[in-house]
Structure formats: C-alpha cells, structure tokens
C-alpha cells in the first residue's frame, strides 16, 4: 500500500471516528442511552473509595512509565481522565490520593489531575516521581509503606516490575486494579492483581467511573470500533478459507451466516 493510500485511509478513519463520537454523544444527551457492557474491575473502585473515606487512608494511583509528549501520550491522557473520576469519588476523604509516575513529563499531568479533582490542598506533594523500571517499583513499595493506601489502581506503562508492587499490596491486604499497555505488564496484572483491565478497557474505564455522558459515549464508540474490527477480520478470514474450499459458494455462506446470526441473537437475548 503506497503512502498516499495510507494517508487517505487515515483521514477517513479519523473522520469516521469523529462522526461516531458525535453520534454517540448525541444519543447520550437525548437520553437514549445504550447500557455499557459490564466491567467488573471498575465496579470494585466504589468499594475502595468508600474504604479510603471511612479509614482516612489514601488511594494510590500509578501512571507507571507512560509519558506525556511521547507516542503514548494518549494513554497518559486516558489514565488522567480515569484517575480524575476516581479522585472525585474519594473527595470526601481527609487524605488525598497519591499519584506516582516514573516519567518526569507526567508529573505536571498528575498534579493537574489532583488539582482539578481534589477539593483540599497539599496536592504538590501528592504526585511523586521515581526513576523508572525496577527502581520505581522498589521506591513505590517502600515509600507507600508509611502512607498505607486503601487500594492501588495501577494503570499505565508497566513491565514485569509490576509484580513487586502487586505482591507488596497483596501482603498488606490492600486491593489492586492493574492494567498495562505492555504485554509483559499485562500478563503480570492478570496473574497477580485483584482486578485487571485488558487493552482498550484502559481507555473506556473513565466512562465506567463516572455518570458523564460524554465519557460513556467514548466508551461506546470504542465498543463499536471493536465490534466492526472483529467483524472485518472474521469476513477476511472466511474469504481466505473459502478460497481453499472449491465446493463453497455464496448460498452456503449466506445460509451458515443466517443460522449463526439467529443463534447469536438468541444467546444475546437470553443474556
């Protein structure tokens, strides 16, 4: 595929996303809300914020190595939005949440997030930077021993060092939610965290943590794109398979598709 075609596809994709975002927001505003699919991990956050308020213990929110200004800027912005809603929920507590990061350029983003969402003061020292990777994990586990957080929400760029933080949280009986945009970190999160999000759920999580219609509409757009992507890949796969089966024709494909669609509809309705 040449560069011009790629550019045209990129522009079309961006415009289609803009259209989807505004359509979803329009329906959300008009009250014709499509219910979000269930995300059990985010449901635990309410329990943890309540614990934080009742016990006057902070929540620990970690951005990891996700940096503003690099290719993962959008991940950092999505995390900041997610953390904003968590901090708003914990606002009745006397102790403000702590945000840690190993990317120096994310310190202002973290401070901005606490400043906007937290009504109290002393937000400058609530954002903490530590050197990256293993040193970050070691410093966070040591430094947070004295702060004794109620729970940890570790969402961002993490590698295997995530295991140290999750192990420490587990030993202290603190709840944990983890998600990473790196494969190694995601595997550790799945194995060791109390709750984990996967892949694009990191971007949709903000929509689940708030009643804000716009954030929920963005989460729905992600679901729509995902469904379209799966459908597209399935069709391509079927066409590839069809090439290797000379007896296959359109009538068979349509019949099988219709039967599958009916079964899918029945299963969906029963859920």
């Amino acid at each position, binding site marked *: 595929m040449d560069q*011009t075609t790629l550019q045209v596809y990129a522009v079309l994709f961006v415009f289609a996303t803009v259209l989807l975002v505004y359509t979803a927001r329009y329906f959300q505003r008009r009250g014709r809300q499509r219910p979000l699919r269930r995300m059990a991990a985010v449901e635990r956050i309410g329990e943890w914020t309540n614990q934080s308020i009742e016990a006057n213990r902070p929540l620990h929110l970690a951005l990891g190595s996700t940096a503003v200004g690099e290719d993962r800027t959008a991940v950092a*912005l999505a995390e900041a939005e997610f953390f904003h809603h968590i901090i708003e929920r914990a606002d009745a507590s006397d102790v403000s949440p702590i945000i840690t990061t190993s990317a120096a350029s994310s310190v202002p*983003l973290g401070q901005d997030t606490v400043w906007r969402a937290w009504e109290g003061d002393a937000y*400058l020292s609530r954002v903490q930077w530590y050197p990256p990777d293993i040193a970050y994990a070691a410093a966070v586990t040591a430094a947070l021993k004295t702060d004794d957080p109620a729970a940890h929400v570790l969402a961002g760029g993490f590698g295997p060092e995530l295991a140290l933080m999750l192990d420490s949280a587990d030993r202290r009986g603190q709840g944990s939610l983890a998600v990473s945009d790196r494969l190694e970190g995601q595997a550790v999160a*799945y194995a*060791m965290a109390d709750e984990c999000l996967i892949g694009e759920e990191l*971007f949709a999580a903000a929509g689940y943590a708030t009643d804000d219609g716009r954030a929920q509409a963005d989460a729905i757009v*992600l679901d729509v794109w995902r469904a379209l992507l799966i459908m597209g890949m399935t069709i391509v796969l079927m066409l590839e398979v069809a090439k290797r089966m000379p007896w296959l024709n359109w009538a068979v494909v349509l019949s099988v598709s219709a039967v599958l669609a009916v079964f899918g509809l029945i299963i969906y309705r029963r859920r």
Partner: protein
Amino acid sequence: MGRGQRFGTALSAFVAFVIGIITALSLLLGDNPALFGNQPGSDQLAGLLAVPADVLLRLVVIVLALSIVIGIANLLYVHVGRLSRGKLTSAVVLVSFGFTIYWYVARQGDASLLEAVQVPIESALAALLALSLLHGGSRVLSKRADIWGLLFVAVAVVVLLASLPLAELAPVQAWRDWLMRVPVGAGARALLLGIALGTVVTGLRALLGQDRSVRG
C-alpha cells in the same frame, strides 16, 4: 465558574484545537509530493506543509529533555516534606542524592559510584522479581478459579518446562514455539489493536480541545 475562567478555558481549548489540527494536517499532508500529482513545485509544497509538524515536534523534544528537571525537583520536594514529618528514610534519599552529585562533580564525571551501588541493587531486585512472579503465578488459581486461570497456569508450566535444556522435552519445546508464535502473537496484536483504537478516540478528544488537560 467566573467569566474570566470561562474565557481562559475556551481560549485554552481553542489553542489546543488549532495547534492539534495544524500538526495533524501537516503530518498527514506533508512530505508526500505524490499527493499533489507530482506537478512542478509539488516537492516544495509538500516540504512546506511538513514544516509546522517538524517545528512543533522539535519543541516537544526540547520540553521533554527539560522535564527530567521537573522530576528531580519533585523528588526533592516530596522527600524534604517527608523529612520534615520525621520520615528518616527520606534523609537517606536526600543524602545519597547530594553525595552522588558531589562524587560525580569532584571526580570529573566518574560514574563508578552508580555502577558499584545502583547496578548490584537493581540486579538483586531483579532476582527478587523472579521470586515475586513465581509466587504470584502460584496464586493465580486462588484469585481466578476459572477456566482462564487454569489455562494461564497450564501455559506458564509448558513455557517453563520448555526452557529446561533436556532433550526429552523436545515435543514440549515445539508446543512452546507454537504457543509463542500463534496464540501469544495473536493476543499481542489484539492488545495493540485495542490500544490503537483507544489512542485514536482519546487523541481525537484532545485534538478537538475537549480533553480535561487542555481545557485550561
């Protein structure tokens, strides 16, 4: 929200929108003369369109290089605050910080202190990490007592067994290779696709000046 604050928010969102659109258009349309039909002068036009993105991205690189100063200032601020509340471990951090800088300056760029202290400590922690991972892996089934937890443990066992240097385990090594090539490769791509979709939606929100961080 006061009138001035509303104006500030609108201005900030407008600036973010304009800069975002200029950068996006510059990246999409710049440096590709074929887009303008390879006519005479299309080279210059494509080069000219690439300039705004080039300039803005250079600015970002400079700001990022300076951000380490923010990180160090934050580290010192946090630990001075903790020290004033009687946390003595923060004193260790501050003294180590000062001593390392003194050593580096006094010995004209000698990084032996870093190599003698930092590297062994990080290596020891990496070894500890292996134990933490093993411990975490052993508790997967207590956290996720379902088919997926079982599958996770089974795959981990196959991969661990396959890494043993035993000739009898050649079939397991073949399984491991298949696992890494097909399901793991597919899973990694699915994860990346999901993140790419999320990046587009979040990027658009920032580009349209609707992200909280650019609303002033």
